């Protein structure tokens, strides 16, 4: 696994609060996390080694069984490990335990986490990829040329004038 920090313009639904889109992604900047720091967060969460953290350990075993039982053995086990490793990385961030009732960030946050935001009305639209636009244009031009060439050939065979009685 590798970690990168980057910024994005994000859009949320105000009713469901779901993240709907992330665009204008910045260049990624490598984020280095030492293995001992990750293990430290697991010590804080599961409990120090050899301590009585029985519930967490039994739960993590049960959870692993559920991942295995969910389908493919490899992806199930891999997803378990990946989600387990992601948990402390995502939650132990400066704003991971933000107080939503505060008027100002509580605890205070570094300037790099300041953002601007705007309320907006969403609208549905269709967007096609550049590849599809180019393919469609080439195909349409090809069909048009084929029609023109064939009509010219037919016109030439008939002597240039339509038959009249």
């Amino acid at each position, binding site marked *: 696994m590798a970690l990168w920090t980057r910024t994005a313009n994000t859009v949320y639904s105000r009713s469901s609060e779901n993240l709907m889109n992330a665009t204008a992604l910045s260049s990624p900047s490598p984020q280095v996390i030492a293995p001992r720091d990750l293990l430290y967060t697991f010590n804080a969460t599961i409990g120090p080694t050899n301590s009585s953290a029985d519930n967490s*350990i039994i739960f993590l075993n049960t959870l692993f069984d559920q991942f295995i039982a969910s389908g493919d053995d490899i992806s199930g086990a891999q997803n378990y490990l990946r*989600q*387990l490793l992601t*948990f402390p990385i995502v939650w132990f961030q400066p704003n991971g335990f933000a107080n939503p009732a505060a008027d100002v960030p509580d605890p205070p946050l570094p300037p790099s986490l300041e*953002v601007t935001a705007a309320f907006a009305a969403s609208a549905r639209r269709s967007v096609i990829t550049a590849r599809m636009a180019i393919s469609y244009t080439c195909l349409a031009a090809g069909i048009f040329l084929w029609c023109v060439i064939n009509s010219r050939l037919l016109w030439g065979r008939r002597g240039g004038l339509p038959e009249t009685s």
Partner: protein
Amino acid sequence: MFTESYLQLLLLSQVIPIFYEPKWTFPMESAVTPACSTGELTCVSYLFVGGMDAITPYPNRDDPKFPNKNDTPGADSLAVFGERGLQIDFWDLIGESINTSSCQTWATQSGSHAIILCIQPSSIGGNNLIACNQLSSNFI
């Protein structure tokens, strides 16, 4: 600051949905790790942002001090500019081995269950980590 039981509850509730949480997880079409773009590795990637409730003041807060739903009844969305997130790329472990000195074990007092977690820097270098885990019930 936070008790061990609170963190345990957080772990138990957040590990399962973390890749599927619609409020702050965004599956990425492409990874940024160089070895992923060359096709050397098969990668999956996610962008994790803070979510609406990590923004202060809370955008849906019903407080006359701040813009709220009543001021903007037609606005069904919130656009956030320059929100910082964390992109995590994952790939299958190929051609690397884990050193057992990188491992840590947690076990129940009775020894009935245990979890072993190994994390170490990848030989690829940079900001890459490799990890593995082993769980055992009836550990005795």
